[in-house]
């Protein structure tokens, strides 16, 4: 019998939600564990096996010099490295520090900022090491996570759509809330994967899966203006969980980029 492939899960600056997605696969978890060795997953197990690992899932962004070094060690130990979630693929909500002076934030949160060691920026994993696949979302979709694990362990391409959320609304049969109700929605420029949850709950998409392939953000800007969205509101819509993604950053910059 061949040895089971080894899976490692690594955490950087993040909320733990994306790795929790694996433990949230209640129906599949024990089956997954039959086919792989959970070799390094501190949130779930005390047992840690040494690398190399066949697949590393990386959650979180790089915000400290220690983590900048640690991700390189992770890369060297990993046959495949897949980032999971908006923090690891785009810097996460904490990348909002990139739009200001981080020292100002430290003074707000900590009484003795001299005890804190942090970098000026929050950056995605791909800014530091080669990444084999980026799974988006804040949080990721657990079915997509299972697809990615399955694909990499079988050495094939994950079936993850680069389309926009609009396509998922059509599939779900949700009437367009922007057209029908004038509700501001980032669905046209946001990558699918969540299943278009927000519009099905009478709410505009807020872009937590980041930009789709070739998003037409300036066209969306025109739509938003027509339905009365202010420049400040529009900028803030792009400056959330994927603020550091180029297409979102640039569109936000065009609408009062000097402000947060």
């Amino acid at each position: 019998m061949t040895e089971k492939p080894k899976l490692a899960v690594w955490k950087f600056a993040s909320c733990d939600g994306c790795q929790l997605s694996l433990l949230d696969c209640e129906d599949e978890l024990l089956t997954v564990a039959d086919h792989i060795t959970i070799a390094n997953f501190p949130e779930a197990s005390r047992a840690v096996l040494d690398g190399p690992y066949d697949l590393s899932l990386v959650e979180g962004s790089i915000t400290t010099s220690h983590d900048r070094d640690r991700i390189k060690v992770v890369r060297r130990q990993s046959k495949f490295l897949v980032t999971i979630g908006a923090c690891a693929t785009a810097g996460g909500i904490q990348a909002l520090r990139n739009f200001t002076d981080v020292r100002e934030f430290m003074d707000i949160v900590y009484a003795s900022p001299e005890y804190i060691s942090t970098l000026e920026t929050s950056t995605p994993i791909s800014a530091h090491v080669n990444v084999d696949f980026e799974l988006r979302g804040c949080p990721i979709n657990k079915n997509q996570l299972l697809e990615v694990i399955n694909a990499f362990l079988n050495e094939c391409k994950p079936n993850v759509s680069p389309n926009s959320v609009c396509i998922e609304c059509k599939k779900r049969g949700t009437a367009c809330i922007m057209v029908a109700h004038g509700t501001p929605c980032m669905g046209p420029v946001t990558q699918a994967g969540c299943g278009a949850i927000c519009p099905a709950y009478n709410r505009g998409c807020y872009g937590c899966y980041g930009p789709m392939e070739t998003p037409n953000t300036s066209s969306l800007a025109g739509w938003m203006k027509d339905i009365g969205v202010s420049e400040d509101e529009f900028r803030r819509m792009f400056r959330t969980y994927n603020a550091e993604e180029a297409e979102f950053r640039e569109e936000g910059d065009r609408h009062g980029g000097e402000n947060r």
Partner: protein
Amino acid sequence: MSDSHGGGTRTIKVDCLARVEGEGAMYIKIRDNVLEDVKLKIFEPPRFFEGLLRGREFTEAPDITSRICGICPIAYQMSAIHAMENACGVRVEGALRELRRLFYCGEWISSHTLHVYMLHAPDFLGYPSAVEMAKDHPEAVERGLALKKTGNDVMTLMGGREIHPVNARVGGFYRVPARSELSELREKLLRARELALETVKWTATLDFPEFEQDYTFVALRHDDEYPMNEGRIVSNKALDIAASEYDDYFEEQHVDYTNALHCVMKPDGNCYHVGPMARYALNFDRLPLEIQDAAKEAGLAPICTNPFQSITVRAVEVLYAVTEALRIIDAYEPPEESSVTVEPKAGTGYAATEAPRGLLYHRYTIDDDGIIKDANIVPPTSQNQKMIEDDLRRFVPTCLDMADDEIQYVSEQAIRNYDPCISCATHFLKLEVDRG
């Protein structure tokens, strides 16, 4: 790690604590068979939420703060929402209030069950993980997964998804469920109630170290409910205040070895205990009689002071949350509107709600346009961090005859008694035992 235990100095270190949410370490130093130092270090990198909230709209705080913690996002959403409504002078009542409680029940069920079966039980039964435990105890792990899933089902129906749900807003929800959607959930909850009762009984079969403590418990207390979204902040030592007075009685201190703030009571700087044991001790009389009976049958007195038994207290709270969810569903009449309008008003709003791990305090100052000028968030693990160290300071001396790896094992278990969420506390942990 030293292997000598008699004289000299022993250092026990755990560089990365397992089965906690986030990154932390433990350091224990024993000199001449006397415990000299204990530190719980949180090296999870800081993410500066209070800073990045400034300049955002008051309506954005629930979604942004939910990203502090993927394990208890609803707690953040609920504390943020109630604080903003407090600032704007709005109270949300009736069916919307009940739906918020239903939503929170989902998170209590899921988060507590995750901890009971997947993070804490392996300590008692001697396994590195629930997956390993499942090989010898498949019924238990499968029961845990099924129960946890029902919690997630509640969150997914009410919130769109279980992690960072999208449906809660200042004023209510974007969409409220139809009665027919809840009836399907009701069937799952009926099954979950049996699983939850079995869980209470199962946790009672575990071996608990003798470790009764004289805690200062702090939790919410409400006139007629087991507390979730509102109530006075009370203790078993005469504290009884409104959430708006929190800053007068508690303070966060910054210590050099950790990225989390230590929270203490003013003016003495004493530590205190938040979470399931505190809620239970201060609100036992608010539990339905059949749940009080289930707790008693599982060996719990109305006040439980052994933190290792917190696993049973969590199981009791899961049973309560399932029962409460069923009560809400059975009485549900959909509200006419999914939310009430909340107009921004310059001022400061305060709220404390009961996250699965304990009291979660939010305070915001907003301007007339609803722009956030100041934010302060105190998560449960910041409040418990000093308490955890205090427990270790009293617990480790009872185990000095053990080998270092055994001390490490039971000390980690003592830390996990609190279900610490390190991601929350930095807004936490690595074990080092130094026997010098």
